[in-house]
């Protein structure tokens, strides 16, 4: 896992270059970035750098946003942005950019302005994990119903032990019985 700094330096901080410029040949700042990217398959960035890094990557061309995915870890939410790297020789591979959002107040900038595909993906992460994506409109639930409370995929989400609907007495689970989760 490499720090975002050197790749940003290689990309030329603040100047993304025209789309597709980097994929042609190996020289120039875009070429150096490409080599750096080919070497590392994964990159960890701070939330503040996220938009810049992804915009620069898009500027290189040949990157397609495949998935945005969050894992609920004790240290925070690890949100992974997976890009399919179509450029360069050799088979297309996945290049992952990871950002960590705080457990207590998970916020990340939205990349919807960079790739429109991020729209539905971010909504899913918000819905199921509760990570707020800032700087976008329409962040609402997509899989759960609109007035659902809680974020189901979090580790501390309690699955309901007693049924929500009326159930005959003899079918109720015993009090204190273990639910279905680990």
């Amino acid at each position: 896992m490499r720090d975002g700094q050197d790749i940003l330096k290689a990309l030329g901080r603040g100047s993304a270059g025209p789309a597709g410029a980097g994929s042609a040949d190996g020289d120039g700042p875009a070429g150096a970035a490409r080599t750096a990217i080919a070497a590392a398959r994964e990159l960890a960035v701070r939330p503040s750098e996220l938009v810049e890094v992804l915009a620069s990557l898009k500027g290189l061309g040949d990157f397609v946003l495949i998935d945005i995915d969050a894992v609920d870890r004790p240290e925070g939410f690890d949100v992974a942005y997976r890009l399919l790297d179509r450029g360069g020789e050799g088979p297309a591979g996945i290049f992952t950019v990871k950002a960590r959002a705080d457990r207590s107040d998970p916020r990340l900038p939205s990349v919807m302005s960079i790739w429109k595909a991020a729209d539905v993906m971010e909504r899913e992460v918000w819905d199921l994990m509760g990570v707020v994506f800032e700087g976008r409109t329409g962040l609402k639930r997509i899989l759960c119903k609109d007035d659902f409370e809680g974020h189901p995929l979090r580790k501390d989400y309690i699955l309901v032990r007693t049924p929500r609907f009326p159930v005959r007495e003899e079918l109720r689970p015993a009090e204190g019985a273990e639910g279905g989760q680990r």
Partner: protein
Amino acid sequence: MRDSSIGSADGAAGSVTAVAAEARAADPALDALQTEEYTLNLGPQHPSTHGVYHAKLRLNGESIVGCENVIGYLHRGMEKLAESRTYAQFAPYTARFDYLAGVLNNWGYAMALEKLGGIAVPERAEYIRVIVAELQRIASHLVMLSSMVIDLNAVTGWMYAFTAREGILDLLEAVSGSRMNLNYIVAGGVTEDLPEEFEAKVKRTFEDLHARLDDFDRLVSGNEIFLGRTRGIGVIESGQALEYGMTGPNLRASGVDLDLRKDAPYGIYDKLDFDVPVLRGGDSFDRYHIRLLEIHESVRLVEEAMAGLPQGPVRTKLPKAWKPAAGEVFEQIESARGIQGYHIVSDGSAKPYRMHLRSPSFVNIGVLPELAPGLTIQDFVATLASLDIVLGEIDR
């Protein structure tokens, strides 16, 4: 619930709203005529939404001015379920994601587990995987072709393609005992070897398939009415498709040559000789036609794999409560609908810490709110059918 994200399109030049606005400006009597846009819910119960998909359409007469996807009616919490099942217990669940291409889901999951645990797959198993997966791809594409034509009311075409699919399902049943939702490709190989006489069965089925596809093609592809309903409808440009992260036949119909079987080969795809059809138009007809072409390519792949099938074991068996090392893996395959990816995080125990499915249909429908305005309801139905979505993998 009021929703500002639907919005009313201000009308690009030539659209219904623009023309209507011009007419109003020209004629005061028309301006006094009260019209209003209305909201129509297409789905979730609807004969042609391919499952419980709900589109909130804002309509001006029959033209769509705004579209919003509403999904989640089939959300079964599979990703959460995975956290309380062992890896082997969860394998049958994977087939229920994209239930029309069950075995392809199994393969993605199996590949992810193999990478996680560093498991080797016997070569015979790899060949069998290709055979069964391509048969499943043919069956899935046949469903898409049938459902697209029946959405346009060519009922006979639907029946022809579905009858062809029956032949393929018989093959899949001979291999695994199950017509849909095969739990055949597992981590370490395939559950059982191919049955006897399989090659002869495949040959007969393919002859029948070619005859029926020929009938279907002649009935539908050149039909003036069908062309009128699909040519130039729902055009997705290649740049737009890449923006929206579309993959699979939908992307290839828009001119982008991206197929993981060629660009990032897995299994033994790098040893097999096949073409990837790419069409330039990006309209609904191209999305229909490309699947017809892909069926022929899959037939070629199956025949090639059957010819080169080596002898050997078909499975590296894993213990039931297999505990892989802690780690994280993301493996992707070219499913019938696009790139399907499995992200599995293991914490060293017998159950996954996190299981996430990158679903191609989930990402593909993202394009609809931009694509729909300007289409009529009939065009929307045709476009939705051409996108070939499966709600099982959208909602998980």
